[in-house]
């Protein structure tokens, strides 16, 4: 993951350093997401575009604890934060969003298909539930190779209603594979709330029904997520068996750029509801904790923010200056 440049005190305060890194990472995610709609409206970015604002702790609390490369990460189309956490350069991400030759997928994937296999990031997936059957295969391969690595697979609450997810869960439970499932329960699948989409809302029970143990976690608090993920990862490395974490969280913006365009979100939630969840913002919460513990001053926070914003602007400049993919690459990569 990106390293902070804030000066450290002489005495090497690991915990402080770690928290600063995570704070910076979450802020980088937020600032990057805040920039993409602007670029979409400037017609620099096209297609579907899904932001992670509000869910940052689910990624910052988990991925930095992995061994990358070695372990693997799979996620949905809402994948910008995951790529950042795996260490993909903001430049390569922004260039991919703009469909440039310098993008992490040479401009062929776009927002929903960021990828960086050398860093263990197997990419986003545009199909709801799609990464879960794939995680079964990745998990099987990791067990097969026997090097003690694990696979982390992110997916949404709406994906719990995909049959393929249940087939894969059952097989992962049956074969006992080293996969950590992170359910990004942000309360909605597009405009459909969890209550309107499931016959039984306890997702942990759905995983247990296939032989995968799990628990529910407050996904709005980085330290809570980090602690739960730490336990889960240790347990998986030790037992080789899968674990399921349902993370309660919330997406601040519409489902995707289209949702905002249509104002569709007004049909499924109120501005008040969004405002209430924003009060639990994981970035502010971490900042308060760190300030309380004397890990971070207002000035340092400002500095980090300026840095991060600069990094995003730099990525944008890089992407905009990058060439489009050559036309003859159209027929390349269809086959290996």
């Amino acid at each position, binding site marked *: 993951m990106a390293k902070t440049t804030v000066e450290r005190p002489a005495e090497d305060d690991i915990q402080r350093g770690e928290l600063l890194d995570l704070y910076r990472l979450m802020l980088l995610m937020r600032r990057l997401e805040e920039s993409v709609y602007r670029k979409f409206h400037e017609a620099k970015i096209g297609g579907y575009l899904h932001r992670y604002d509000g869910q940052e702790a689910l990624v910052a609390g988990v991925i930095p604890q992995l061994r990358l490369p070695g372990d693997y990460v799979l996620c949905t189309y809402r994948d910008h934060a995951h790529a950042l956490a795996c260490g993909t350069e903001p430049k390569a991400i922004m260039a991919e969003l703009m469909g440039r030759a310098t993008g992490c997928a040479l401009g062929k994937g776009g927002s929903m298909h960021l990828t960086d296999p050398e860093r263990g990031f197997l990419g986003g997936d*545009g199909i709801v539930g799609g990464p879960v059957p794939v995680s079964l295969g990745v998990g099987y391969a990791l067990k097969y190779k026997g090097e003690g690595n694990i696979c982390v697979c992110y997916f949404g609450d709406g994906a719990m209603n995909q049959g393929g997810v249940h087939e894969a869960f059952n097989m992962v439970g049956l074969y006992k594979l080293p996969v950590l499932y992170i359910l990004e329960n942000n309360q909605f699948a*597009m405009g459909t709330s969890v209550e309107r989409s499931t016959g039984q809302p306890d997702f942990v029970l759905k995983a247990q029904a296939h032989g995968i143990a799990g628990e529910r976690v407050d996904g709005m608090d980085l330290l809570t997520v980090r602690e739960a993920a730490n336990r889960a990862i240790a347990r998986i490395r030790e037992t080789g068996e899968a674990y399921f974490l349902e993370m309660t969280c919330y997406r601040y913006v519409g489902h995707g750029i289209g949702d905002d365009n249509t104002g569709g979100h007004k049909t499924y939630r109120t501005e008040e509801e969004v405002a209430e969840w924003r009060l639990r913002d994981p970035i502010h919460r971490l900042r308060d904790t760190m300030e309380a513990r004397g890990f971070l001053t207002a000035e340092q926070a400002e500095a980090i923010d300026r840095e991060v914003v600069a990094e995003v602007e730099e990525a944008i400049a890089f992407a905009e200056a990058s060439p489009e993919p050559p036309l003859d690459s159209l027929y390349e990569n269809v086959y290996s």
Partner: protein
Amino acid sequence: MATMRYQQALRLAMTEEMERDPNVFLCGEEVGQYQGTYRVSEGMLQKFGPQRIVDTPISEIGIAGMATGAAMVGLRPIAEFMTWSFALEAMDQLVNHAAKITYMSGGRIHCPVVFRGPAGVGTQLSAQHSQSLESWYAHTPGFKVVMPATPADAKGLLKTAIRDNNPIIFMEHAGLYGTQGEVPDDPEFMVPFGQAAIRREGGDITLISYSRGVQLCLKAAETLAKDKIECEVIDLRTLVPLDMETVLASVRKTHHAVVAQEEWRNVSFGSELSARIHEQAFDDLDAPVGRVGGADVPMPYAKNLERAAIPTDNDIIAAVKRALA
């Protein structure tokens, strides 16, 4: 007659049929409270209530089974796929259930269901969301495959589909939703299946297409007219049943043909059409039938690459010139 968008014409067709027949209902993802991902079903939940406008979980197998099972016992479901790409999840229910139950039961069970939703390419949705696969459905006996090109056909063909007693693959083009056109408001206005429309008359060459491909053909025809090349443009409307009579009559007149589609070209509907024209009008042809189709690659995201992957009127013009050379 009223001027409306393709999208509104679809809504009007569903609304009229639901008012006419209480057994018709609509189910799918975000069709109700959210007012439809592409606004096709906007306002219908308020009008018909939650029993007839059914929001579903993201479960395409469930949606397809729900529609198929309800049709088997006398209802007339309309199932919306948010986009046709997601029907890949439901392929067993579609192909091994909906399309075959009538035959397997010796005609004792009927399956009057319409599977509909947007397909089509062109807005950088990238590989997983940019395929329509009408060729797959046309290959599969038991389905009728409908692909309207105009707002009037969107209404007339959808009404015919809803009243048909068979499983219908009704593919809309997301890129056409916004197009305006005159639409008859007569609630009995229907467009029959298997009757192609001649969208432009011409004696030099026959251009055959469907869905948005028809627009490309008309655009190409206009340009070519400036060079005194008169194209006859045929809109097939339905791929199954297929109106070969209209196609052959035109080819016998023009002695040249180009078939055009936005979908992948290899082993596609265009292949079948080309093969049939050669088989049935071989001696009338002065040149082999030209084929225009999408590049045989997963759809790339980058704007310039996507543009290069999708056929344009210029590709059709080039094919016409090759055919007439």
